[in-house]
């Protein structure tokens, strides 16, 4: 039974990474705002009080905004991967209502195959871009990082997404596990009559 917590961790790994990135860039931006307010106030004071004039102060962390934006890009694409695991990506499905259920199922599986093909193409070309990025390095303006490292998120995210799409389809069609609709909100009490929405949003 030791494998269970490990599996659960792996199942949610994008979510954990994403939450760490989210907390990181939110705190970083807040720190920037605080610094701006504090030093702004001190700057105003320095015009009146001679003491502050002798200490030139940094207005903010210069690389703060850039780093938070990079964290944000990683956050978005990992978040999209997690959304794929939750089967949360918006699809238009009301047209399937007039057909038997099997039509919708087959059609959705087919669309997922197209999705995987799309992801593979993206993986291939993002690796190309990264290779080129190491050959002719481009540096980020303030942190001076090689941009190719930042672009690593694309092959990572699109590969993980492909794995998640396959995982969801296996869960749904092989193990017959009902994937909960994440857009349905929990009303707190269990009820007998749950209205049929027919559309996954």
């Amino acid at each position: 039974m030791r494998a269970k917590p490990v599996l659960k961790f792996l199942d949610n790994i994008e979510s954990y990474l994403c939450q760490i990135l989210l907390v990181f860039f939110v705190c970083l931006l807040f720190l920037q705002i605080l610094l701006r307010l504090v030093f702004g106030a001190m700057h105003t004071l320095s015009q009146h009080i001679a003491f502050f004039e002798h200490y030139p102060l940094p207005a903010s962390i210069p690389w703060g905004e850039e780093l938070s934006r990079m964290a944000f890009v990683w956050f978005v694409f990992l978040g999209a991967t997690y959304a794929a695991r939750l089967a949360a990506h918006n699809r238009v499905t009301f047209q399937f209502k007039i057909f038997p259920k099997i039509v919708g199922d087959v059609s959705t599986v087919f669309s997922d195959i197209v999705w995987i093909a799309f992801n593979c193409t993206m993986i291939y070309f993002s690796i190309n871009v990264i290779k080129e990025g190491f050959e002719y390095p481009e540096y980020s303006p303030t942190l001076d990082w090689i941009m190719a490292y930042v672009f690593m998120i694309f092959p990572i995210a699109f590969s993980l997404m492909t794995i998640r799409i396959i995982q969801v389809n296996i869960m749904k069609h092989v193990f017959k596990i009902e994937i909960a609709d994440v857009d349905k909100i929990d009303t707190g009490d269990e009820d007998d009559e749950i209205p049929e929405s027919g559309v996954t949003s």
Partner: protein
Amino acid sequence: MSVTAVIFLTFIGLLFIGAPITLSLGAAAMGGMIFSGKPLEGLVEIAYTSVNSFPIMALPAFILSGALMESAGISRRLVAVAEAMAGPFTGGMAASTILSCLFFGAISGSGPATTAAVGMLMIPAMTRHGYDRGYAGAVTSSSGGLGVVIPPSIPMVIYGVTASQSIADLFIAGFIPGIMLAVALMTMNYFRSKKKKYKGDGKTLSAKKVLVTMREGFWSLLAPVIILGGIYTGFFTPTEAAIVSIFYTLFVGIFIYREIELKGVMKALESTTWITGRVLIIMFAALAFGQLLTINKIPDLIAQGLLDLTGNLYLIWVLIIIFLLFMGMFMETLATIMLVTPVLLPVMLSLGVDPIHFGVVLVCCCEIGFATPPLGENMFIASGVARTTLEDISMNALPFVFVSVLVVFLIAYFPVLTLWLPDFLGTLFQ
């Protein structure tokens, strides 16, 4: 076969077989690029530039702060204020719902989130007071959209980024239209409640009671003041205001109301990750799609087609609004904005329409789209909470949709309604 045909056929074909919207847009753009012989490395560059932007970081920040406000007890107190103010009138519980959505709209930037937060509290309260479940759901889903018209607003962030317009100006411009929509909904509610014999909540309107709830909800009412005041005075950018509101909510939740739990915070973080991920990956696909359309001069073609049809701006607005409402019925809101903006904005600009004005009309149309079937995010939530069918809610929502559409036409025909406030504040703070 032209590139345009390849793009549109792939897009519509994939949507029809039930592919995610992101994939439909992305694969259509990829198909178009392959067809016209462009290197696909460009797509990777777009994936990076589409989200590598400071203004768009307001989106996860507003989603997170909205989710936190729920567990910090801020939403509940805002609803209490609204109830004390509007409860005693005819159809009072429904009017309180609309007013709550108005208040909540000033701290939340999302329609479905507003519907969920207000609906969880007000729909059960309405049914207890003898309201029809369908009517209760319809009121909530129709007024939940106020969340995106009253600033802050996530669709406005998306429009501002896609159209490179000032998000702060858009936020200010949405204020008067939002109030107008709320007044229209309340008027319609008054007449319908009178007919359905929905009385007030039995309490009398007293200034004292309103003041008591306002004092209890003081820290909640301060939230919109900080967010909007900070943006309007130019003290914060919208992204910074969203970040500040996260920490403000945490502060109030931990030290003042002492209601927030670690579990609630973790849940808010978790839902923010996947909601942002699925929305912003559409951004990448929509940007690639939009660029291809622009290269192939589709906006010019549409503009020419429109102008050949009529030169009358009023008639063009009619066509555009009908088109947007139609899109709103079938498409996800933010995807609609990302898709429509690069195509329609140049058209409207060439006709002399202000981009801020167009943005507000676009967002108002999306507001209505939240409450129109078959894809109306607010209706799904309302039907879940009210435990009634979508059909029941949509039938009851029709009159509300009707008055909202009237207001949208007013807003479109009188640009001064949107543009006056930004101008006024602009001169005030300069």
